[in-house]
């Protein structure tokens, strides 16, 4: 800066508008747009999002546009290696693995989705109510959780599968019984921390109802815990289903989830690696993408965001 540059005329009173005094630099935006902008900055998350979208599209459309049906068998072509006709090869029954993998993805994603929704609805609400009510309600609710955790999961699942036909619905229902417990515990702990925060007290003094407080004040502020936990719930649900097929009480043929496919692939791993590799790759890809996206979402949804 050169002093001589400064004209004497500049030494005059300037007008300063009032609004400039209360100036806020960044432009305003809506919650979602804002989150989206932030998410877009996170390259890994964007890539993950696109991969996930691609996977979902494939899961929806690949089976529709394939010349093969997921259940059509071809015994002359069992355990066929990947080739032009069957991109992912074929399985024991000569069924096209490309179609089966995407069908399986469909089912696994459905299971994941329901598990996640359940986690988000039942788990979060249960935890929130338990924490906010406190006292005896809390004690009872916590004991209920302990009991649910204490009764062996497998017994419940088998009972379910006995009572209802083995299908996606039954499996989801069976997984639902205890799937949300962890979330409830985490949310509860988080809300116990939050519930004496001043903004909660503020809502109380304004006469806001407890339910509204849970919905508007508490849950949004546990987003990061919730998102992280969902990231664990999704693989858990998918793998619990896979475990059921591992012990032989999962989905019924010819339906297949990724878990079922991986399980049957694992059994022929030695000689027909492709049967395992493709579904396994899809499942790993899904998990990785969910995790990265989850981390990105957590950051994006957090208006204050860690530095």
């Amino acid at each position, binding site marked *: 800066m050169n002093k001589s540059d400064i004209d004497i005329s500049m030494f005059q009173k300037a007008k300063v508008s009032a609004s400039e005094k209360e100036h806020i630099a960044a432009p305003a935006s809506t919650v979602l747009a804002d989150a989206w902008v932030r998410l877009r900055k996170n390259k890994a998350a964007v890539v993950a999002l696109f991969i996930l979208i691609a996977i979902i599209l494939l899961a929806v459309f690949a089976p529709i546009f394939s010349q093969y049906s997921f*259940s059509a068998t071809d*015994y002359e072509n069992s355990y066929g290696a990947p080739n032009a006709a069957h991109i992912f090869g074929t399985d024991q029954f000569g069924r096209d693995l490309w179609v089966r993998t995407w069908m399986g993805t469909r089912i696994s994603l459905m299971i994941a989705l329901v598990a996640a929704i359940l986690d988000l609805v039942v788990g979060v609400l249960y935890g929130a109510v338990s924490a906010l009510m406190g006292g005896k309600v809390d004690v009872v609710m916590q004991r209920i959780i302990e009991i649910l955790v204490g009764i062996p999961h497998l017994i419940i699942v088998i009972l379910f599968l006995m009572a209802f036909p083995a299908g996606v619905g039954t499996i989801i229902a069976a997984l639902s019984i205890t799937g949300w417990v962890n979330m409830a515990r985490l949310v509860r702990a988080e809300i116990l921390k939050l519930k004496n925060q001043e903004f909660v007290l503020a809502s109380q003094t304004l006469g806001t109802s407890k339910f509204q407080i849970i919905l508007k004040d508490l849950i949004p502020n546990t987003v990061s815990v919730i998102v992280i936990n969902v990231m664990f719930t999704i693989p858990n649900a998918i793998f619990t289903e896979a475990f059921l097929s591992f012990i*032989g*009480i999962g989905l019924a*043929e*010819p339906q297949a989830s990724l878990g079922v496919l991986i399980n049957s692939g*694992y059994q022929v791993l030695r000689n027909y690696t492709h049967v395992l590799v493709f579904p396994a790759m899809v499942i790993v890809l899904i998990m990785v993408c969910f995790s990265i996206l989850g981390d990105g979402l957590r950051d994006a949804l957090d208006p204050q965001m860690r530095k």
Partner: protein
Amino acid sequence: GFTGDDNSKTESTEKGGEASGEKETSGEVLSVATNAEVKTLVQWAASEESAFTVNNQVQEGLFRMDADNKPQPALCDTYEVSDDKLVYTFHLRDGIQWSNGESITANDFVFAWLKQMGTEATNGYSFIMNDYIVNAQEYSEGTAKAEDVGAKAVDDQTFEVTLKSPTPYFINLTTMVMFFPVNEKFYTEQGDKYALAPENMLYSGPYTITEYDPSVGVTLAKNDKYWDKDNVQIADAKIRVVKDAAAALSAYQAGELSQVQLDSSNVTANQDNPEFGNEIDFRTTYIQFNLTDPVVGNVNMRKAIAMAIDRTALTKNILADGSAPGTGLIADGMAGDGTKTFRELNGEVTSFDPAKAKEYYDKAAEELGSAPSEVTMLVADDSVTKAVATFLQSELEKNLGLKMVIDTKTAQGRGELMDANNYQMGLTAWGADYDDAMTYLDLWTNGTPYRGNYADDTYNSLIADAKSQTDDTARLQDMLQAEKKLVEEDVVVSPVYHRGSATLTKSNVQNLITHPIGVPIELKYASFK
């Protein structure tokens, strides 16, 4: 007998080698695998192959199967049969001893057999005595006294058995675990502890047990009190529990097992391996139709289903482990008239013919008023069974346009549903207890829901006639007819396949025998090269 659904198969040998993986010096320990736990060794409580296998190595009956599946005198030296073929007198070998040095007497047989007939027997095998031995059934039901039962110790070395009717294969039966002797004194001393640990047992067979853990398996050592110990070549052996097929193959390749059973996916890759071997079991997997079901109660429907299944494709492409197409209920290779097998004599009683199947199907649909929207197959939850069910599903869909739902339940659950008449079709299996067609045909005489509620007078009289026949040819004729009636005419069941087993055996192991019935594995004759 009750192989039901469990595909447990016991096999394998190891050329020594401690499990720790130290490289074994060759020819030390023979190690075979079983895929199910050895939950009990009490012979009237055990019903699983794994337990039979262990008991067969450490105990012995009057006879023992030789390498050609023929019974050879074992604890019994000689025997006579009365002219009416009803009284068997067995003369025990001289100087046969329990592993503690006490001598094995005819009373030990009487004690064990009575136990098997008695109320304590929980293995469900009492019929195998009750059906043949005089007053056994009555004893079982508590209406006869022990003294009246047709199994008596004439003296310490003479054991006399009286049968209800002539039974040409009775000697075969005595090779079974249920017919092994038990030392009464020792048993009483042990009380509840009997057979829980190696020291709670006495041994009469080629080996003694040195270590026993139901979930790990058993460690065997040559029994030096065994009468034929000079012909037992291998001193140390193991029967190990390996539940996972892929893991078993790994263990075999790592040298921890001497023999392994291959699942279908590994057969192609190993077919040219000099260690590869292939056997067929006397065991049939079949569809049990529930005759009271409105849909499959229709005989044309059953025929359609039975004919719509390409069993060769199944065994060739899906199972690929040496299993044979189930062209009849009686397994390939089972005894017929001495020159030809039963199967050869009776031919294909069920066949694959999609065109005809469709005809039958349409006829059935007409009779039923409409084609069924779907049928349900009840199956147990092991992977082979599920693969077979999947195959059936696609065959029915392809050849009949019939949708088949697979209802997977635990083995216990499947059993209970069938018992409760709560099924349409069930996929189940039966393994021969002895080398005679009767071991199968007998089952459909009682009309239980489990057997599809099949109660047919013609069939029952054929079986009854066969049972009382003294003439072997007439008896065989009855049985051939019975199979035709059951499978071809009435289609109460539809055989699917006869199980085969593909194995790899280490090249230094020889004479590791696999029997197609009863006790699959026999260590006694094995040796290292």
